[in-house]
């Protein structure tokens, strides 16, 4: 029960606005000072350990690739292509937003990158077209959750590192749940758009551009997701290598083909990349001391004990697992949550017959919802920075779309084949 104090300290400090990383630090420090001050010497080692993870090099590289795509015109062309793609269903910009996130999800490994990339291009356009600010931001953050579910995915890399599950297998496991979320969100978006009679004149967006032209330009942009998914899923390159390939490709296309990147922009892009990557890595670093303290006070055994001690049907255990993941996702960011939850619950779930790939899918789909729920929702944070609207307002507008995520979470939890069919087909399990 000692863990309660640790969590309470953390909630207190984040609540008053101390940056998440320092909240994790100060709550661990205070806890150790009062229980075992000699353990304070673990502070530097654990923080270092959290930042010294080779596979995470993929993170800055995917962020950089995203930046280069935005500046180099690839993102805009993906949006143009999406405008044509949703034409047969008479969709508007809301559906374009979701569809573009599905494609972008296949490029960036991070949902936060997706929010900032698609949001910064599409939200202003949507508002101009008469969509409410709430709807525009809500649909953006909700569809961004696909960024970490549709491969490639940095959180999946983290999960693979902890669980030993194959990266290729995890990526394929995320494909169907990701696509299902996208399709169901598009349906919700069409329904709301029709009810509120948002404009549907998408043709104007690509007026003057022939379909052939859009497709031709789009091809170069669309090769990228294919390139990355194929190279990682089939093991041609490791995750960090294919992130490197993505950067190289985005630069070549943006600089030599579309000629939209200027060399003078590069320092600014690199600085922004360093900042985003560092602010994520440092949270991981500090979460390691937090989770080390949790391990030392045997919190993992407590939670595992709670789950194994439950004398109920597997159905209820899995349902409780979903609720537990949603709860953790409200307070802890995806990566530290994975680091805490995976080693404890994976053995418990395996004993119940849950495959590590399926457990990975459950965690990823569940924690993705946490990106859009206050108090700690990284996509919400990114979105408030793009346009001036409160976190709570974005969340309210994202809710109808999040129902899709919750339904898919339940599907992934109770229908193993949704995540396991493709990996089995590819011989990865």
């Amino acid at each position: 029960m000692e863990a309660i104090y640790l969590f309470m300290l953390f909630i207190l400090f984040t609540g008053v606005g101390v940056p998440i990383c320092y909240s994790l630090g100060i709550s661990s420090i205070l806890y150790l000072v009062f229980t075992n001050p000699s353990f304070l010497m673990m502070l530097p080692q654990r923080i270092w350990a959290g930042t010294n993870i080779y596979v995470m090099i993929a993170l800055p590289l995917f962020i950089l690739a995203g930046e280069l795509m935005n500046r180099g015109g690839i993102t805009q062309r993906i949006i143009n292509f999406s405008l044509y793609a949703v034409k047969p269903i008479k969709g508007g910009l809301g559906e374009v937003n979701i569809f573009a996130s599905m494609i972008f999800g296949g490029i960036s490994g991070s949902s936060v990158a997706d929010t900032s990339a698609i949001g910064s291009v599409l939200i202003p356009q949507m508002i101009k077209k008469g969509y409410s600010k709430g709807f525009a931001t809500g649909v953006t953050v909700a569809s961004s959750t696909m960024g970490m579910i549709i491969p490639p995915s940095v959180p999946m890399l983290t999960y693979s590192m902890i669980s030993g599950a194959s990266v290729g297998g995890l990526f394929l496991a995320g494909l169907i749940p990701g696509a299902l979320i996208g399709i169901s969100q598009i349906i919700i978006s069409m329904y709301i758009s029709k009810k509120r009679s948002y404009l549907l004149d998408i043709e104007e967006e690509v007026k003057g551009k022939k379909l052939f032209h859009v497709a031709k330009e789009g091809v170069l942009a669309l090769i990228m997701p294919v390139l990355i998914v194929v190279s990682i899923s089939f093991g041609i390159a490791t995750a960090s290598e294919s992130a490197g390939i993505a950067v190289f490709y985005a630069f070549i296309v943006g600089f030599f083909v579309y000629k939209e990147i200027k060399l003078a922009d590069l320092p600014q892009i690199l600085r922004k990349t360093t900042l985003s990557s560092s602010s994520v890595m440092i949270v991981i670093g500090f979460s390691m001391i937090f989770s080390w303290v949790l391990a030392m006070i045997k919190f993992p055994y407590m939670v595992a004990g709670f789950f194994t001690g439950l004398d109920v049907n597997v159905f209820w255990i899995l349902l409780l697992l979903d609720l537990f993941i949603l709860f953790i996702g409200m307070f802890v960011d995806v990566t530290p949550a994975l680091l805490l939850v995976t080693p404890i619950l994976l053995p418990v779930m395996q004993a119940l017959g849950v495959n590590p790939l399926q457990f990975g899918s459950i965690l990823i789909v569940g924690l993705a919802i946490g990106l859009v729920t206050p108090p700690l929702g990284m996509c919400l944070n990114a979105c408030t920075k793009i346009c001036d609207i409160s976190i709570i307002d974005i969340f309210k507008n994202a809710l109808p779309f999040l129902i899709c995520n919750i339904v898919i979470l339940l599907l992934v939890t109770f229908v193993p084949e949704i995540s396991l069919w493709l990996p089995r087909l590819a011989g990865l399990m």
Partner: protein
Amino acid sequence: GCASKEEIPETANETTEKSAQPIVMKVGHTHSAGTPRYQSFEKFKEMVEERSNGAIKVEIYPSGQLGNEQEMIEQAKLGTIQGVRAGRFDDVATELLVYTMPFLFDDVESFQKVTRGEIGKKIAKAAEKNNIIILSTGDAGGFRNITNNVRPIKSPEDLKGLKIRTPGVESIIKTMETFGANPVSIPYVETYMSLKTGVADGQENPCVNIESMKFDEVQKYMSVIEYQVHPDPFYVNLEWFNSLSKENQDLVQKAAEDMTSISDEMTTKANVEALEKIKANLEVNVLTDEEKEKFKELAKPVYDYFVNEKGYFTQELIDEIKAQ
């Protein structure tokens, strides 16, 4: 009956001992449930707690809960935890690397004779300068063999130019280079995919690892070359160990040796079973003594490199081991 006559002195005894808190020994490792290391550590806990009548309490932190091997060795050096079983030999004492010299041991028996004998104690002594006492040294996983997708390896020529995935262990990389292979550094968890797609042609590992990581599914040949074996030292914080009473030191020492025997026995058994399973999936060739001789001859510069260039251990130590 709850208060039988025999129980009265026992409870009295307990209260006197309980006034002094039990000594806590925190130990860690990175292996998961079901492995020899995990299971033998559980036995160690049982043995120590039973033999000390609860005066020493052992807390095990498995599966890398407290960090990776390098980090847990640091924690043991600093005294945050009291013990760890891990590799990373040069973090503790470069002398331990002598065990990993190519073809130093002909069989598991001669390896165990050294680790459990006087020479083993001498090598272990080198760790004390780093505030670590090595209570016992076991076999980390049995002899290492080579698998690949190109051809069965019978002579050094067969290995030439093959891209072999290696872990970041200096003596493995150096040996592979000396044999003419092209070592490729790939993380352990990504090895399966890299073998499947040809990023690497082959890899080297003990049979247990090859079987548990399913490398046999993506490889065509395995050559039982048994070129190297890794020690499994039980690193314990020296200061903590010295703070124990002589009686407690002896019982922890004895339990550590018993744990190592249990672990070694399980490892050997697991390797035999793994080899049987591997045989079902790929072509296995066992190198004859004459075939091995060519490799042994070729491996001499590796010894030179570590003795003369690096100065990790002395030629006398190697001669002593060979004389056993």
